[in-house]
C-alpha cells in the first residue's frame, strides 16, 4: 500500500527542505558547502524556527555573504570542524552505497572513470570530524544507490580504534529518509515520502537496508514551517541561490 498522499498542498522540494530542517534539531552551528540549495534552505528554516529560543543556531553557507561567518578562506571551515565547532554538514555523492560510503570522484574503475564528478575535496576529512553528516541526494535510483561504490571519497564507518568523532547520521532522498547506524554500517529506512511504497524504495535502491515492517510516512510540514519557508527562508535563499529560489517560487505558485 502506498504511503498516503499529503493532506497539505506542498511541493516535493519543500518536503525535502522541511525533512532536512528536522534533522538539524539541537545543532549550534551548521555549515553548508557549495552547490547545495536544499540543505542551505533546510538550515535557514531550522534557524528561523528556533528564533524565539535564547541560543540561536548559527549557519555558515559557503558562497553566501549574508549567511556566512567565515572570513578566513576555505581553511577556516576545516579548522573550525576539527575543533568541534561544526555540528552538522551535508555531503552528497554520484554514488552512495549501503555501507554509507560516498563517491564524489567518478563512475567506473578509478583512475579510468567513465564519468567524472566534482572530486572528493574535503568530504573525507569532514566526515571524520563533523558529528552529524547528513547525506542528501534527490535522485533516488539504482545508479546512485549502489551496492558498492566505485571509489570511496569518504567511508561510512571506520574500524574500531580509529579516532573518529564524525560520520553519516542520515540520508535524505527524493523518495525517503534513512538513518545510519555507524556501528553496523547500515542504513535504516525511517520514513517514506507520500505516494511511495516500500516496494518502490526497494526497487530504486541497489543496496539492502533495515526497516520496520511497515515504515512510517514522512510527516507533512506543519503550517508554521511552511509559512517560514515560503516567506523568510526563500528571501534569504535568493541571495546565494537566486535561480533555485525563483524556480521553487514558481512551483509553489503552480500549486494554487
Amino acid at each position: 500500500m502506498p504511503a498516503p498522499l499529503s493532506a497539505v498542498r506542498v511541493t516535493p522540494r519543500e518536503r525535502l527542505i522541511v525533512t532536512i530542517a528536522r534533522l538539524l534539531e539541537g545543532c549550534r552551528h551548521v555549515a553548508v558547502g557549495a552547490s547545495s540549495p536544499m540543505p542551505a534552505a533546510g538550515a535557514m528554516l531550522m534557524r528561523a524556527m528556533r528564533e524565539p529560543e535564547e541560543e540561536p543556531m548559527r549557519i555558515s553557507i559557503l558562497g553566501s555573504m549574508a549567511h556566512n561567518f567565515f572570513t578566513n578562506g576555505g581553511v577556516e571551515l576545516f579548522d573550525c570542524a576539527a575543533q568541534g565547532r561544526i555540528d552538522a554538514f551535508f555531503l552528497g555523492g554520484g554514488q552512495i552505497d549501503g555501507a554509507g560510503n560516498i563517491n564524489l570522484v567518478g563512475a567506473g574503475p578509478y583512475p579510468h572513470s567513465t564519468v567524472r564528478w566534482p572530486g572528493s575535496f574535503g568530504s573525507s576529512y569532514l566526515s571524520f570530524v563533523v558529528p552529524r553528516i547528513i547525506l542528501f541526494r534527490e535522485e533516488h535510483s539504482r545508479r546512485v544507490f549502489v551496492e558498492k561504490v566505485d571509489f570511496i571519497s569518504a567511508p561510512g564507518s571506520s574500524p574500531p580504534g580509529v579516532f573518529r568523532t564524525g560520520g553519516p547520521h542520515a540520508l535524505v532522498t527524493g523518495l525517503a529518509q534513512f538513518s545510519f547506524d555507524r556501528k553496523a554500517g547500515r542504513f535504516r529506512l525511517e520514513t517514506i515520502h507520500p505516494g511511495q511504497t516500500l516496494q518502490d524504495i526497494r526497487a530504486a535502491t541497489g543496496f539492502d537496508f533495515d526497516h520496520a515492517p511497515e515504515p512510517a510516512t514522512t510527516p507533512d510540514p506543519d503550517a508554521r514551517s511552511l509559512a517560514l519557508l515560503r516567506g523568510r527562508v526563500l528571501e534569504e535563499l535568493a541571495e546565494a541561490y537566486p535561480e533555485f529560489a525563483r524556480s521553487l517560487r514558481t512551483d509553489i505558485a503552480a500549486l494554487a
Partner: protein
Amino acid sequence: MAAIPGIVPDIAIFHAPVADRFGHVLIGRWRELAIMAYAARRTIVTVERVEDGNLLAAEDAVAGMLPALYVDAIAVAPRGAAPYGLWGEYTANAAEIARYARAARTPEGFQDYLAATGLQPEHA
C-alpha cells in the same frame, strides 16, 4: 602537511573587482584567492577597474586585500567573471551558463562559443 608536499602551481589567475595602481587587489573575505597567490610562482589578476588610491592604507579594510607582493600582473577586464557573478558587482546569468554548458559538450561547440564571444586567442 609533512607527509604530502604542497602543490606549487606555475600560475594562479583570478578575477576581482578592484586593484590599485600599486598592484594591491581587493579580495574581501575570499581568502582562498590569497592562498592560491601565496602558493603559485606567478599570479595574474584581472579586475573590473583600477583605482588611484592605496588599498593598503585603511586599517579596517587592509585584511581584505592581497598585497602587490604576491601579484605579478594586473589586467583590466570589465565583466571579466561573466556569465558568473562577481560579489558586489553583478549577479550570475544562469541562462548563459546553461547555454555555455551545452555548447562546451563538444570541442566544436566550445570553439563556436568562443568565436561568438570574440575572446578567441590570437594563435588558436
